């Protein structure tokens, strides 16, 4: 099975991931790639509470994730890899473009320097530039908050 979804979502582990994607994909592990959470035991306590019994949660920083990506891909269970920002996902893609080839933009929310592109996707100019670079490098990028909503390809988000 391996990694069924590479998702960028600044809310990290929450209902859309656990229930919305987790149930239809049969997700049994979630890899949260976030250096701050990796270093924070109280945050890890909270995220563990957000997942139901039977779903394992891994916490990794970028370097650990790059090392562990082949292991996650070879896992017999279905899993989701989540990053809280585009930069982290871009680092994973840059290291292993053969594995991280389809990236789901699941939720990047309001910030003062960001512009609304979709109701759940707000992008700063440097984030838009990063998405264009990833696109040019061959990554398949689309926005989709839930499996029941249509995926929006990057060329519709940033025409």
């Amino acid at each position, binding site marked *: 099975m391996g990694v069924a979804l590479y998702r960028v979502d600044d*809310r990290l582990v929450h209902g859309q991931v656990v229930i919305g994607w987790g149930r239809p994909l049969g997700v049994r592990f979630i890899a949260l790639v976030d250096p701050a959470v990796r270093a924070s035991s109280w945050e890890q*306590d909270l995220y563990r509470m957000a997942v139901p019994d039977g779903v394992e949660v891994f916490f990794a920083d970028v370097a650990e994730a790059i090392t562990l990506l082949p292991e996650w891909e070879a896992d017999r269970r279905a899993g989701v890899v989540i990053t809280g920002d585009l930069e982290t996902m871009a680092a994973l893609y840059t290291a292993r473009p053969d594995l991280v080839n389809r990236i789901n933009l699941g939720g990047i929310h*309001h910030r003062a320097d960001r512009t609304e592109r979709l109701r759940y996707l707000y992008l700063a100019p440097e984030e838009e530039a990063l998405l264009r670079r990833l696109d040019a490098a061959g990554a398949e990028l689309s926005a989709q908050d839930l499996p029941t909503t249509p995926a929006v390809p990057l060329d519709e988000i940033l025409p």
Partner: protein
Amino acid sequence: MTPRTAALIRLYGVQAAWTYERMAGIGVGHASAPLLRDLYAASAPAERRAAVARSAEFFNSHPYLAGIAVGAVVRAERDGVDPAQISRLRIALSGPLGAIGDQLIWAGQVPALMGLALAASPWAGAWVVGALLVAHNVARLLLTSWGLDLGLREGLGVGSALSRSWIAQRASDAQRVAAFGVGLATPIAAWQLLGDARPAAWAIVGAITLVGSVLALAPGTRSHVSGLRVGLGLLAVAGVVIGGMP
């Protein structure tokens, strides 16, 4: 009125200013304001305004548990925690509070009360609607009050406190009670609606209800059987069975 009471009242309207931009953030900021005003009473107005603005940033969780986040954030402000870490606390609380709240309230308490009220309706009449509303809102008040106090007491340690508290286990139990309530209500509601149906139909519905209740309560199956699944399944089967009876 004390700042805590004001915050408690404001938490009832935590979704009143819900937007895709900040979701429940503005409601959380509004609920936090009385506590922050009290906390920053001796500080410069700019400091207080900055704290209120921080508390109104993007936030999303179950509305009935938002008090936990309000309390934890205010306590973290009181403890002088770095603002960036407070923002991370808000984000980290969103997922678990949403997941626990969905299980405890939407998949637990609400269908449980609806099912039990429906089951009692032939004998209690219209009064059961009032009792349902009172029970639901009293439970919400107690839950919100408990959550606000937990957050105010624990601050950054609220995650560990939550995992030690009753709430995670009760969220699971609430779904089993919901399964029982809906299973109980289904044949009674069917009896009310189709009082002249053949006895065989009632026997079938009773058997289905019994099986559903056992599945929802037995240790081996209860983790797979939510109140919603049992309720919808029983409704569908009962509808087919009764609808197919001549």
